[in-house]
Structure formats: C-alpha cells, structure tokens
C-alpha cells in the first residue's frame, strides 16, 4: 500500500516562526514523495491544531503523520492521541523537533529554515517505515515503598495511607523525622519545628496502613513498574520491639556517653543505648555497638539488667533481618547532606573554635538541645557580643557547588532573628552575595530583620582569621570582607561566626540512583522526568522523587513534593492496570545463535538465556527499551521496536538529504 503522509509545521507562536520560515517549510514539505498534505499552523498543540490532523486523517485517508514542532518530551503524547482519535495507530506518527533543536539555537533564519527541512525530511522518511505497535498492559501492585523518613517521606506516606493504600516507609536512622527534627524554628512564621512535625511522626507510627521500617536500608531492587521486588535489611537494634515499652530506663542506666555527631551535630552527647531525641518514632532505643562496652569487651549489660519488661527487651543476640517486599511504586525521599565546611579552610572551621556550622547553631538554639537553647561560644558559657553569619558557604561557587542552595538566605535571616531575640545586645552581621527570599511571607521576614537592626553587608567573605592587626581585633575572630555597596574593605572583629553551608546531594546518591536505576545529575541530585511538567517522576517508570534529594528546597516545597509524588502513585493504584509503551527489544528466537554476548548487557536484567534451546530471550515486562542489547547483538537479530534499522537508516538518509547533494564526495575512480 502506498503511504499518504500528512505533515504539520508548527509556528509555536513566534518561538519557531521567528527564526524558521514556516510557510516555506510547509510548501517544500508538500512536494516531498509520499506527502499528501502539508500545512503550517500557529499552535499545533491546540485543540484546533489537533483537529486539523484528525480531520485530514479521516477525509484524506492519511496513513502516516509528521508534526514538526517542539520536543517529543512536550507533546509527542498529545499528537499520538490525536492520531488515535483520527483512527490511526499512535506509532504511525513521528515528531520533528524544530524548536529546541533548531529555532532556539540560532538567529540565522536561512540556516534555521534549512535545518527545519532536514529534520522534517528525516521524520517523513522515518515515518514511512513506522509500524503499528500495541501498548503493553501492566498490573499495578497497590503497595508503595517510601524511602526516607524525613518530612518529604512522611508527607508522601501519610497521603497514600490516608487514601487507603498500604505503604512501607524505610528509614536508615533509628527514628523518622529527618533534618526537620533537628531544627528549632522554621522560617518565616517561626513556628516550632518539633511542634508541627511530631504529630505527623506519631501519625506515621500509628497508621494501620503504614509499615514503618526504621534502622533499615534497601539493599536490592528488582522488577518494574507495578511489580518491584525490594529487599530491605532491618538492622538489629538489640531491642525487642514486641516487648519494649519505650520506658527509657535502659538509657538512663547506661553508664557510657559518646559525642552525638548525628543528631546533635557533635555539640552534645548521647548514651550508647539511645533514642536520637525524646520525640523519636518509634520509641524503641537502639544500641550503638561500636561504642557499647558489652559488644566491645563483653562486660556491662546494664541495660539488660535494668530492663523492667518481661520478657526482657534487650536482646544482644538479635540479628539483622532481611525482608522481601513487593510494591507497585517507589517514592524516594532520601533528603540531603550539608556541605562539609572544612573544605573551605579560609573560613577556619575546625581550626578556629568559635566558627560554627548552621546545624550546630540550630541545635544550640533548640530549647531541647545541648545548651538548652542558650547561644554561647565553644566554651559553652560565654554569650557572644557579636556574630557574623556567612551566606553561600559552598554554594554559588565554582570550586564547590555552582548552584544556589535556595534556603540559606532564609535560614541565615532566621538565625539573625534568633540571636536578636535571645541576645538583644549582640551585634549581628549577615554577609551575603545576593539576598534571595522568594516565597510567601519571605520578603516580609527580610524586612523584619532589617528593622531589627541586623547589619547587612553585601559581599562574600574572603576569610576568617585570628590574626589581629589592631587592638580591637585582639582575641577576636576577624571576618575580612569587601563591602561591595560602599566599596570598602572591612575587617569585622566578632566573637562568633556561623557558616551557612549549602544543601548538597547525599554522599551515596550515586549508588542509590544505581540501585533504583534512575539518574543523578552532575551535582548528585536525582533527575526528574521534566523540570517543569513532571518534577516528581523520574525517567524510570514507577519511581518517584520528593524533597531535597531532587535539589535544595525548604519545608513547604518538600511537603508539596511529598504529596505530589503520592498523588502520582495513587492515580496508578486506582487505575489498577497501566498501559506501557511498547518500545521494547525482542530477540528473534528462530535466528538467535546463542553467542550470549547480550547476556551481561541489560541494565534491567531483562535478558535470560535458555540452556535447553540455546537461545537468549528478552523478558518484555522488564525491558525498558534502552537499546543496549540491540546495539550489542553482532548478528543483528535483536530488534528494538520503533527503532528498527530501516527506520533509523531512513531517518539518517532524510536528515542528510541536503548535505548529500552538497557533499564533495571522494572520487571513486
């Protein structure tokens, strides 16, 4: 059957039309072989634009459709659906990207028009070879795994559980709560972080639809959207959760204290058997075996001796448990790390005692923290008379992280406020590059600080030292900074310096992204499917992300993302079955010679080898259509549906249509 192709060139308002001569491309397209109709239209993605396609298919009997417009990321689905409404298989469609790949890359109208033709020609040549494909139905297991028990994970888990779905919430630490549990106040409203967080933590702990797995880590993930097989290691707490009442006597009686580098940021101590903080969920303590005298030297057992439950809840013989769970979807909410400020030696952290990190300061101002909320120097006694808060530590800096960490301006302002509140006499300086306070009520908070008398110095601090040059500097920390607004070099002698470090990706984000088979960006943050239109999905179907694992964000944004991810999952669960793109690899079982080169290739473990028949096979449901095996098969008998040789070669021929005629070909005498 001879093909009848319809070609539609989109203006995209002026996005395309300003550099591409759209009329010219449409006229030219109409003259190409197989093309029955070629049109240009202001907005192809509009209902009217889509109707054009539908009507042409019905009236002119078109068999193939090409739309030259934006990226397939944006509208491939739109136009495929239009084809279906017109009565065509959705894969009888091909999209040429003449916006991102063309009009947006140049101002040269002539070149852009020529390239638009080449891209359109490629799509026309390819679409002629396109074959109808049928989507694959996949059953969705209604259970969901949420990884990370910070505010993002908590929000997501509660949303899903409230909607009647079962959730497994896995948290690495002994308690959920995440970084938010460490904070004192939250900007800009200054409500107590614990006060708003703990009710949610309790809800999680008590919800019948949530299986809470703390002190646990995901070890392996198999399967695919609808049916992930997940292996979780539940580490031994050495406390029997069935009988422990959480009375805390064991903690009280434990004779050994260690510095708490995790929750108290090294500023306070905890017992060796401990709960990270009083409101921890679950309430069960955990034994830190590295520091436990019993585990190290076989003596003590104070916790066991004093445990009042019957049977005794302390179990030194407890082993890690390996759990196998099956879930339909996964939400990653693994949070962030704080930038290690000792990487910037000129700020003196670790060398100059009274340089603090933001997290240390958070713990210090926290009423239940190690200093009971008193702001003091490293001696834990003297209140500072002057404090400099340094913004952008490790962010907006090519040497560390290029990105703006988004929350530091606001929390630095919050610190200034808390110092004014607790130490009204103290002088507070905020050294910033640009003040970034976009958010509801944020600018108002900045105004409040201006009124409170904080000294704002616009300049990135060059260094913090203890090298005094004049008497006033003796015994002080001297903050050297260019005040760029008045063009003066300033040396500010102060008692305390607080560094506001960037939020950065978790140090193991790379491994985690590999475990869940999704992408990490250059900075280590997880990559969303689309930065604007699909910010909580990932490139791997069935895996979602929420919160600071995707990029720096504050509490409100994190909570929104948690809920958004939950909503995406809930919609899958309620559908029960989803249709997956049929773009999958397949091995011709007749022709496979069993060389087994493809066997180790598949990143999704979708290839099996049948010893009996001596052939390899792709398990369609596991295949993600990446094409790795297609490229590797030396016999050319693995086919990637919708990416066949004839389709790709035709596309290449098409795109070279103009180049070929201009080529100064090597003489073949």
């Amino acid at each position: 059957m001879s093909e009848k192709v319809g070609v539609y060139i989109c203006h995209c308002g002026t996005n395309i039309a300003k550099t591409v001569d759209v009329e010219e491309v449409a006229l030219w397209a109409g003259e190409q072989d197989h093309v029955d109709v070629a049109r240009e239209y202001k907005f192809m993605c509009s209902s009217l634009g889509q109707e054009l396609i539908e009507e042409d298919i019905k009236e002119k009997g078109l068999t193939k459709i090409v739309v030259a417009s934006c990226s397939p990321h944006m509208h491939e689905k739109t136009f495929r659906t239009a084809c279906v409404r017109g009565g065509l298989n959705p894969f009888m469609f091909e999209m040429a990207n003449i916006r991102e790949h063309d009009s947006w890359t140049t101002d040269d109208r002539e070149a852009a028009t020529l390239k638009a033709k080449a891209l359109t020609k490629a799509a026309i040549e390819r679409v002629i070879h396109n074959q109808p494909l049928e989507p694959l139905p996949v059953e969705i297991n209604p259970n969901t795994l949420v990884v990370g028990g910070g505010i993002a994970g908590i929000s997501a888990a509660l949303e899903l559980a409230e909607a009647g779905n079962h959730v497994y919430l896995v948290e690495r630490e002994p308690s959920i709560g995440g970084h938010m549990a460490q904070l004192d106040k939250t900007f800009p409203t200054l409500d107590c972080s614990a006060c708003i967080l703990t009710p949610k933590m309790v809800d999680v702990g008590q919800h019948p639809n949530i299986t809470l797995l703390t002190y646990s880590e995901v070890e392996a993930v198999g399967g695919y959207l609808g049916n992930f097989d997940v292996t979780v290691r539940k580490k031994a707490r050495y406390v029997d959760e069935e009988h422990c009442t959480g009375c805390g006597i064991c903690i009280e009686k434990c004779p050994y204290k260690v510095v708490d580098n995790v929750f108290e940021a090294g500023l306070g101590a905890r017992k060796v058997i401990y709960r990270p903080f009083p409101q921890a969920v679950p309430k069960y303590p955990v034994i830190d075996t590295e520091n436990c005298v019993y585990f190290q030297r076989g003596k003590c057992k104070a916790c066991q001796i004093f445990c009042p439950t019957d049977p005794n809840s302390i179990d030194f013989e407890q082993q890690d448990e390996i759990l196998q769970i099956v879930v339909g979807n996964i939400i990653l909410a693994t949070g962030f790390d704080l930038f290690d400020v000792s990487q910037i030696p000129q700020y003196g952290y670790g060398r100059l005692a009274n340089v603090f990190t933001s997290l240390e300061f958070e713990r210090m101002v926290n009423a239940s923290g190690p200093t009971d909320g008193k702001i003091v120097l490293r001696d834990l006694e003297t209140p500072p008379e002057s404090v400099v808060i340094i913004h952008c530590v490790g962010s907006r800096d090519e040497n560390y992280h290029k990105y703006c960490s988004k929350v530091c301006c606001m929390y630095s302002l919050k610190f200034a406020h808390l110092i004014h509140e607790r130490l009204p006499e103290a002088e507070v300086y905020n050294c910033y590059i640009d003040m970034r306070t976009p958010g509801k009520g944020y600018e108002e908070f900045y105004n409040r600080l201006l009124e409170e008398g904080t000294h704002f110095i616009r300049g990135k601090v060059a260094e913090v030292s203890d090298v005094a040059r004049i008497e006033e500097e003796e015994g002080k920390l001297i903050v050297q900074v260019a005040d760029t607004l008045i063009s003066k070099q300033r040396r500010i002698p102060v008692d305390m310096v607080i560094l506001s470090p960037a939020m950065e990706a978790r140090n193991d984000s790379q491994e985690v992204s590999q475990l869940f088979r999704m992408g990490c960006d250059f900075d280590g943050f997880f990559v969303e499917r689309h930065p604007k239109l699909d910010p909580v999905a990932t490139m791997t179907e069935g895996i979602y992300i929420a919160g600071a694992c995707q990029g720096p964000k504050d509490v409100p944004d994190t909570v929104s993302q948690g809920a958004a991810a939950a909503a995406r999952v809930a919609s899958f669960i309620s559908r029960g079955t989803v249709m997956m793109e049929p773009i999958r690899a397949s091995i011709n079982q007749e022709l496979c010679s069993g060389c087994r080169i493809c066997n180790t290739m598949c990143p999704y473990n979708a290839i099996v080898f049948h010893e009996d028949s001596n052939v390899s096979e792709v398990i369609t449901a596991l295949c993600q259509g990446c094409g790795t095996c297609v490229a590797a098969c030396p016999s050319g008998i693995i086919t990637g549906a919708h990416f066949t040789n004839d389709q790709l070669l035709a596309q290449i021929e098409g795109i070279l249509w103009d180049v070929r005629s201009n080529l100064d070909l090597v003489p073949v005498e």
Partner: protein
Amino acid sequence: MKQYAYYPGCSLESLAKSYHLSSIEAARELGLELKEIEDWNCCGATAYFHVDELLAYTLVARNLALAEKENLDFVAPCSGCYKNAYFTNDYLQQDPGLAEHINFALEEDNLHISGPINVRHLIEVFVEDVGFEEIKKHVSRPLKDLRVAPYYGCQLLRPKKDSEDVENPQFFEDLLSAIGSDPVEYGSKTHCCGSSLIITNREAALDMVYKLLQDAANREADVIATICPLCNVNLELYQKQVNREFGTDFSMPVMYFTQLLGLALGVEPGRLGIGKDFVSTDSMQFIMQNPQSS
C-alpha cells in the same frame, strides 16, 4: 644519586646566593644531585608577562626544552620560576597551536619541546622524593626548640596545581618537624609578601612585609623559613625599611628552608651561606654552635 635538571634562576646567582649554596649542600647530603641546566636563561619573572605573553612563554620554554634534552625533572628553587615553568609546560601540553608556535622559535637554538616535562619545586623534591622518614634518618643536629614560622608564600601554591591544599597546606610544617624544629602556626603563612611590587609599588609591598613580620613575631617565631628567593629577600632585606616606615623594631631572621635543613643534616653553617644575611642570625647561634646528637 638521583639527578635533577636544576634551574637556579637569576636571583640565586646574586641576592639569593646562599639559597643556591644551601640547596646544593642539602641535596647532596640526602643523595640528590642538582645538575644545573646548561646555559639557562631568565624565565621572565613576572615583568615579562606584563609585556608579551607569548615571548614570556618562549623564554620559559627554552629552559624546559633544555631540561627535556637531559630527560630529567625540571626543578626550580624559586616559586616564581616554578610557577612560570609549571604553567608554560601545562599550556604547551594543552594547546598544540601554542606548542607549534613556540617550537618554531626554539628551532633557532636547535631545541624542541614535546613534553610533558615534570616541573617541580625544590621543596617538593625533598618532601615527595626523599620523604620525612628518610630526612629524619639523616638528621644529625636536630634544631630542637627552634620556633620556625614556615612561609609558603604565593606561587608555589597558587594558581591551583594538581591537588594541593592552597589555603592550609601542612607539608612545610611536617618538613620542619622532621628536622626537629618546632613549626609555628600562624595565619599569614600563605599570604603574599608583595615581592613583585617591591620596586614598582614599595608602599604596598612594605605593608605586606610588615603584616607578615608582625604575625610571625606575635606567634613568637625565632626565624621565618622561606622557599623562594624573592620572598626571602623581601622579608629580610627590607626589614630595616619596614622598621623605619612603621616604627617597629623587628629583627626577625629569615632563612631558606634549605639552610635549616642543611644545618640539621650537619653541614657547616658557612657552606650554607649563613653569614651573608642582613638581619643577624646571632639569636640562633645556639643552634649553630651546639651540635647536638640525635
């Protein structure tokens, strides 16, 4: 004896003669031969880069090519020479166009660079190739109780080379500990002494020298140790002038690290050029005259 293509640089022929003497001596004690590059020329210092960048690379490249002929690591005791050589070498590797240009010029002296050449600072040779443990073994006269302020200066560390800590390096301190002395922690150790301005903007340079001397003196250093002839000259020769301008009375001895190293290795002070100083090292006589056994 391990050999190096030694590029003394102009200062070591005149003002920093004692650096030259002590480098050769200390190296010999530790089994290294600093083989002076034959017929080397001035690397252009900073001044030449003010005038013409390409010509400056050409000057540096001639010395590098001479070292390449010997097939030895290029070693400079002067941080300025080192920085020029290091980056010229680097750019020649990265930019084939530049290399072609420079090699065209080098033809006039029958030289050619293909590189890369290992460009090292003298202190790197002692720290990396000999090592602290080996140095300790050779120390016959540990400089006990001598408080030494290690002065790194600028161009050894900056611009950033491979993976050095440019803000708070420790290797100089470790070297000073290895010879038994007591390194002084002071904030200015990587700050600039202003030597490239001493002629053209003396006011600024003296201010920098003053700040450095003050910091070292406040931390009760007995002596400042340097790794660069220009820093040394600046801190030592102009101390008097600093005293005049700022009303201070510094008399802080400034010595090359190789002089201290040489002393610890038991070399006789005169052979290390001690005594050619402007700021008297008399306060340190206790070290030189009382050889202690380790």
